[in-house]
């Protein structure tokens, strides 16, 4: 049932702006594949090309052997797409939205109820409620139900978790894992780097380029630097101070501490130097911990490298 996707040398520009720059990628059947990247990195443009909503300037995309330009009608039958903005009718009720999306795909809610039951059961108690009165998390679940109701073999979700609370986000990913088990290829884009570790494979995008494509584990494994998490009593000037001290290292705020990544030969020396230099700048209560990198650290390093180059 599920499909594989072959993307070859896709380029797309809007006037001066290069949205996609020679992107090539293969996605296997039944994968839960994540596209991670900041706003404007080209995720949405790529998805719109995959769903045949945009034409690429150059390059080809095939979905299950179908060409997205020539065979767009067939592709539209097998694709479930959830656009970045919730594409629901605010003045219709939950039930009416779902029925409408089922009927434009020539199917009915009853026919595929099994498929959406897990998701829809969360919002079914509110089925008479108008969509504008739903919370972000409920809207998201309804939008997913609408994208799934015609039993697609490819599900494309454009930033489904943007603007949704943390609990709903976790729930949502669990649902995606379940979907994957019933043999649907799923592509998800997200600006939240922490969600990358939930995917089978991820592609990191920036300015229309693919920076890395790999499993989350491999991406962490390839990260060679040491990360120090730094905390002091005076956090406010800390980033600027650390940047001034370590010209070639990458310094960024991460949660409650500041991360400094270093490829110094002697890490012990680096750490003690850091401490003495900070005390000179009147920082007290200095805590420095060596930590193993998270996927976010890897992405930030890759993106920094891309900008420098």
């Amino acid at each position, binding site marked *: 049932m599920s499909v594989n996707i072959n993307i070859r040398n896709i380029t797309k520009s809007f006037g001066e702006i290069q949205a996609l720059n020679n992107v090539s990628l293969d996605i296997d059947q039944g994968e839960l594949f994540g596209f991670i990247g900041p706003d404007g990195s080209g995720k949405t443009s790529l998805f*719109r090309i995959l*769903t*045949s*909503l*945009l*034409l690429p300037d150059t390059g080809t995309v095939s979905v299950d052997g179908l060409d997205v330009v020539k065979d*767009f*009608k067939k592709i*539209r*039958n097998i*694709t479930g*797409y959830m*656009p*970045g*903005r*919730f*594409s*629901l*009718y*605010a*003045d*219709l009720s939950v039930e*009416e939205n779902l*029925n*409408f*999306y089922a*009927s*434009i*795909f*020539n199917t009915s809610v009853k026919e595929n109820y099994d498929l959406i039951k897990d998701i829809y059961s969360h919002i079914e108690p509110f089925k008479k409620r108008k969509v504008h009165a739903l919370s972000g998390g409920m809207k998201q679940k309804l939008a997913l139900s*609408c994208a799934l109701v015609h039993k697609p073999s490819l599900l494309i979700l454009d930033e489904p978790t943007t603007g949704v609370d943390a609990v709903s986000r976790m729930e949502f990913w669990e649902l995606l894992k379940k979907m994957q088990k019933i043999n649907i290829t799923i592509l998800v884009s997200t600006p939240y780097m922490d969600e990358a570790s939930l995917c089978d494979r991820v592609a990191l995008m920036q300015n229309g380029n693919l920076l890395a494509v790999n499993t989350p584990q491999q991406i962490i494994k390839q990260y060679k630097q040491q990360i120090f998490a730094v905390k002091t009593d005076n956090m406010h000037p800390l980033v600027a101070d650390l940047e001034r001290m370590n010209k070639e290292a990458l310094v960024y705020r991460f949660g409650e501490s500041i991360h400094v990544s270093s490829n110094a030969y002697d890490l012990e020396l680096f750490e003690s130097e850091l401490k003495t230099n900070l005390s000179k700048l009147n920082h007290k209560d200095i805590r420095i911990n060596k930590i193993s990198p998270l996927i976010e650290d890897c992405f930030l390093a890759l993106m920094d490298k891309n900008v420098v180059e």
Partner: protein
Amino acid sequence: MWAFIKKEFFHIFRDYRSMVILFGMPIVQVLLFGFAITNEINDAQIAILDHSKDVVTRELTQKIVSSNYFLLVENLESNNQIEAEFKKGDIKQVVIFESGFARKLEKEGKASIQLLLDASEPNTANMLNAYTTGIINTYSMQKMINSNAVPLSIQVDSKMLFNPELKSVYMFVPGVITVLLMLVSAMMTSISITREKELGTMEALLVSPLKPIQIIIGKVTPYVLLSFINLVVILLLAKFVFLMPIRGSLVLLLAECLLFIVMALALGILISTISKTQQQAMMMSMFALMLPTILLSGFIFPIENMPLILQYISHLMPPKWFIIIIKNIMLKGVGISYFWKETLIIAFMTVFFIGMSVKKFKIRLE
């Protein structure tokens, strides 16, 4: 497709603003045009300066005042008063009889009346002039017949056909029907389609296997129905509030209106395919459709009096042909054989617009 139409009805009925536009506007417009904007003269205030004060002038004054068009407010005594009266602004016309009016008429066979008109409102002045002249001519005719003095004089006798009382409702109702059908049909559809673009739901519709023609028919059907209801409301108002006759076949009238509605809807879709936002669609419908409909269709200003270039442009305006058709049906009561050409023109325009909009309807986002 049925689901699509049902959804569209939900949109319309749940948005009270569009309901107000759909059903409130026609009624308000018809009543406004019917009552407020009128070309008829009722009780225009006049003054009379009678230098003669004899039997004939009294009779003539009587005729003029009893015509219902005029209201005598002042009997003036001298020429000096005239200017002051006009400056007060209430008096629209002063009728002056020369001295020795009856005697001159008896002896020389002619006498003079002078009409002074306040032409700061040219239309009103023209009409008052025509009315008064008419009354005086009728009087002198009768006089001649009665006295058997038959010096054969040729009188110009103009008679107003089809609208003998020159009722402006007869002119406005066809115009209002046209403007409203155009506005409701074209503007509402173009807005409802661009709204989907704006909200991003169009993206989801495009990804579905729906064909452009299915989306278009789904969008348009509710508005065909609603416009038709509107039309019936206007016709009922015209008939029972303004007592406007429908002399021709009602079925034919409704059929022609339906054709025009479909044409306007097709135009609305065409507008929506080239505009990105609701605002843009609204402006386009307003300026590209409303103004030409009102100005160039012959609704208010006669096409024959326009510069040649505008006359040619008016041929491109569907409302022009439609107004000819409904005037023919409602006022003259003639059948299709008298306006098949106009019908054909509108039918052709309809096909053209539908073809264009299906062709221009984007199956992708660009």
